[in-house]
């Protein structure tokens, strides 16, 4: 099998052909996801012993970025799938049912979606209203108003709920349920400004399954120790991909202008230099997140530390703000050609997709959490990694 990067580029080439249509129609990027399955990219992150390739998070981030350069909806779909898979890898590696499910993902290239939000909890995924109802070895679960990106096209869903009907809102577990075990009732269709292909519809979800399908660790621990970090890093990789693509278009625009007027530096050239500078900061930010996470994984106390949470939140906030700024630069450079939707220099889709970054877990909510944590945590001024 060729390298992950080579296969990601193939998927990117497929995604690029359909991205305009995906965006215009607000439809699932099915061609790109089919290509991911054919290239066996959906199991890349899964350890070899469970049929995957045991890729590093940094390699997955690179795949995410490559696909997102072509189609951010496809890139985000891949990122969200891997965020869910990472919970199975980190917290299901000792549970037989989940080991077998990882083998199934590898064998059948299953696409896994997430149902962590719920109507009535105000966007706080660390609170649930719905609860797992156990009866012997079986459980039932009904979750109302949950947003499930690519829910209709997923093969399985990881869903959060209170561990029991009498458990407090934050005592949550996460269960893995496959398509044949759940029913989705559409309650709100996704028709959004950008990221139109993620099809993040709202559903009433109901399922039945075996108690063994519930991940052994409580969700609070899963969120704190792997999901939050991987989520912010892979999202940042999506946004970096979008920003790179916009800068590349702006650079092509200026180069074409320079060729038409030899001997003169086009006015936009300076802004390309500025955009390249910001793009480098964004790249460094994401790489720093990968390094910090790799380091924290070696030490459980570090992984559960306030300093680590602050750092990961800052990765997300930084990337989500920079991407909009960078695309705006690309727009200033390309002018009316970038503003129009039908030129090779268009950055409208980039901008609309990127604007989602600051509200996917609202930056204001994250700043609020960090503000609270900084009442305790003292920032480390050291440059040493």
């Amino acid at each position, binding site marked *: 099998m060729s390298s992950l990067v080579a296969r990601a580029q193939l998927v990117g080439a497929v995604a690029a052909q359909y991205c305009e249509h995906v965006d215009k129609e607000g439809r699932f990027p099915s061609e790109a996801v089919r290509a991911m399955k054919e290239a066996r990219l959906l199991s890349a992150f899964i350890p070899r012993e469970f049929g995957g390739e045991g890729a590093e998070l940094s390699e997955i981030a690179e795949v995410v970025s490559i696909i997102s350069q072509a189609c951010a909806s496809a890139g985000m779909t891949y990122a969200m799938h891997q965020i869910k898979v990472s919970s199975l890898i980190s917290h299901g590696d000792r549970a037989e049912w989940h080991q077998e499910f990882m083998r199934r993902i590898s064998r059948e290239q299953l696409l896994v979606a997430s149902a962590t939000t719920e109507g009535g909890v105000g966007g706080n995924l660390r609170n649930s209203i719905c609860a797992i109802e156990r009866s012997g070895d079986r459980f039932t679960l009904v979750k109302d108003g949950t947003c499930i990106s690519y829910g209709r096209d997923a093969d399985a869903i990881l869903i959060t709920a209170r561990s029991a009907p009498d458990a407090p809102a934050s005592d949550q577990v996460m269960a893995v349920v496959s398509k044949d075990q759940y029913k989705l009732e559409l309650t709100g269709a996704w028709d959004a400004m950008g990221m139109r292909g993620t099809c993040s519809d709202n559903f009433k979800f109901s399922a039945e399954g075996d108690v063994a399908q519930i991940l052994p660790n409580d969700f609070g621990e899963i969120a704190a120790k792997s999901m939050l970090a991987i989520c912010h890093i892979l999202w940042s990789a999506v946004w970096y991909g979008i920003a790179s693509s916009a800068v590349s278009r702006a650079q092509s625009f200026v180069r074409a202008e320079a060729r038409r007027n030899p001997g003169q530096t086009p006015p936009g050239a300076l802004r390309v230099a500025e955009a390249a500078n910001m793009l480098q900061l964004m790249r460094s930010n994401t790489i720093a997140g990968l390094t910090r996470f790799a380091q924290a994984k070696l030490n459980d106390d570090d992984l559960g530390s306030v300093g680590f949470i602050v750092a990961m939140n800052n990765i997300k906030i930084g990337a989500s703000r920079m991407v909009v700024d960078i695309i705006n630069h690309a727009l200033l450079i390309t002018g009316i050609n970038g503003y129009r939707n039908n030129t090779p220099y268009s950055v409208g889709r980039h901008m609309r997709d990127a604007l989602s970054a600051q509200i996917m877990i609202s930056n204001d909510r994250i700043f609020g959490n960090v503000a609270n944590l900084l009442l*305790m*945590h003292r920032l480390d001024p050291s440059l040493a990694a």
Partner: protein
Amino acid sequence: MLDTLRQLIDKHARLPVQAATLGSGQDLYAAGLTSFAAVQLMLALEEAFDIEFPERMLNRRSFATMDSIVACITELRPQALAS
């Protein structure tokens, strides 16, 4: 010290249950402690016991149970055990 701790938990940890109903080794996060409330509780503990939690104690494990909180406080201020 556990009595003082239970009082502070009731006041700052925003648990859906009274601290008196919780065992000292019971997981506070499972009982409903959020990371936001954990920080509020830490600040209240610093004030009550006149201590300052060093960076190495600012993690999930230190505040997971009343026992682990007591261990942190005792390490920082051995005489606090008597209070």
